[in-house]
């Protein structure tokens, strides 16, 4: 984990309010694993005061890519950063996605909105690993992305998934891309339709979506991983600010930044 000032290579709008940023940072890239995140000082000074957590969207050997949605001050400032300007990064932070244990069956990725961000890095890692191991065959392992977004324009990076042979089902709030509905509607449908064995599921998106994913998969015996968001100050496990309730006897909290951001659905209670 590093603290360093890194130059921005690219920072482009790729959908309404969505930006793709590439940052040159060999040291962070070298350590970075899908599911982890970085804490970025989005602007010098005290406005906003805190760093902002953003997931690794893609990792190359010398740079990382971030995919972010402009929400408020921090992401607004980020969106105005020009190539060549420097940003202060802390990372990589948090625990990576655990990779599927089995190399057969179906791996489900469930993305809601900007929740697509960490899933691309994960998909690339899984594909890469299979390629290296030479194990990949259509029969053995299938990745299926269930992807919901606001409008068709907000469905980003689909061809990148498809290039890896991943099947993509989409749905939008307004019906402009795929049916009208939520990512969880796709999941609900998928679970009742005939399909092979699911060997793992990974979900990232708004909290209500994650809650529904947890409910829908409650009876499954396969691991269901949720990537959570919570307000963060340090991002390093020190301030205890980013808690999520643990499914344990008594009251116990886990730190999203350090014990997560990826959790097994069965380990946590989402309020």
């Amino acid at each position: 984990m590093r603290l360093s000032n890194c130059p921005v290579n690219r920072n482009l709008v790729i959908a309404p309010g969505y930006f793709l940023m590439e940052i040159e940072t060999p040291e962070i890239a070298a350590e970075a694993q899908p599911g982890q995140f970085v804490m970025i000082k989005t602007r010098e000074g005290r406005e906003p005061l805190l760093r902002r957590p953003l997931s690794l969207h893609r990792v190359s050997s010398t740079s990382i890519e971030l995919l972010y949605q402009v929400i408020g001050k921090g992401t607004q400032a980020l969106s105005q950063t020009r190539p060549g300007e420097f940003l202060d990064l802390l990372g990589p932070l948090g625990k990576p996605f655990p990779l599927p244990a089995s190399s057969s069956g179906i791996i489900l990725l469930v993305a809601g909105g900007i929740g697509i961000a960490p899933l691309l890095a994960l998909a690339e890692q899984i594909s890469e690993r299979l390629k290296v191991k030479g194990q990949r065959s259509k029969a053995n392992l299938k990745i299926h992305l269930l992807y919901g977004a606001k409008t068709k324009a907000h469905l980003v990076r689909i061809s990148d998934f498809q290039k890896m042979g991943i099947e993509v089902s989409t749905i939008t709030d307004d019906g402009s891309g795929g049916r009208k509905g939520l990512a969880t509607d796709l999941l609900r449908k998928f679970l009742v339709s005939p399909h092979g064995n699911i060997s793992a599921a990974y979900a990232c998106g708004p909290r209500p979506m994650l809650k529904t994913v947890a409910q829908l998969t409650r009876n499954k015996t396969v691991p269901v991983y949720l990537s959570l968001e919570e307000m963060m100050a340090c991002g390093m496990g020190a301030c205890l600010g980013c808690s999520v309730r643990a499914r344990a006897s008594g009251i116990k909290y886990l730190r999203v930044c350090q014990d997560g951001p990826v959790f097994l659905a069965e380990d946590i209670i989402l309020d």
Partner: protein
Amino acid sequence: MNLKTKIGRLVLQNPILVASGCFGYGEEYAPLLDLSRLGGVVTKGISLKPRPGNSPPRLAETPAGLLNSIGLENVGVDRFIEEKLPFLRKQKACVLVNIFGESLGEYRKLAEILDDIDGIAGLEVNISCPNVEKGGLEFGVKPDSTRKVIETVRGKTSLPVLAKLSPNVTDIVEIARAAMQGGADGLTLINTLKGMAIDVKTRCPKLARGIGGLSGPAIRPVAVRMVYEVSRKLAAPVIGAGGIDSTEAALEFFIAGAGAVQIGTGFLINPRLPLTIIPELVGYLDNQGLKGIESLVGNIPADKPKRRKK
């Protein structure tokens, strides 16, 4: 340049510390900075038994400030000694243990337990946490109970004792005096201001607990003022804290009368900040023709402000 500073009997190699609750127990930060180079580190508040803390959300950002309602989540004193302290000892950090009790008895017990333990430079008695139901702020807003808590701890330990005071009081000098009468070696000023922020979309408080503690640059003027008042009126040794996010901010506290400072929120944002401040502090002292940090403390040249030349 001599950066050594004394807060009562507590001797620090330099005056830059990390504040309680912003450092955890240090494991996380060791890869980023050499803990032995800090003036000291203050642990997260430790209680007799482990505490789960408050429900999330526990953080909210405000203009130049941070609201928190952690609620003293901690592993409890036993696990602290067993699991956390050895690491800090190995890192050669100067460790101040921030302790918190819900009753006098708990403070007494904590002092007793920690008195015997190796690798602790002092105790910081937290009587100022706004985020707990019992104890905490309750003790720290009245002179009587303040004195009693400090006396109690003092009676059970030979370690230097700092009283960490709350700014949520009408007269900080009165509380500070009581803490010194109780036998404190010095005072840490300030803990967080009670504050609240509301999410206007949901019309709900941003913190699950409603009210939390405000820290960060926003509160610095309040902290500097309290350090100034207490060090002027009582000549008590003071460690300043509240909104330090730069060397300049730290200097305000020394000039106001603090013998050392703690960095909380500023450290969460930039964990390298303390180690940036140390050399810049040396540069400043040089520039001002001062021999060491002690000659800066409380050193306001005249009564009237001199206008700065551009």
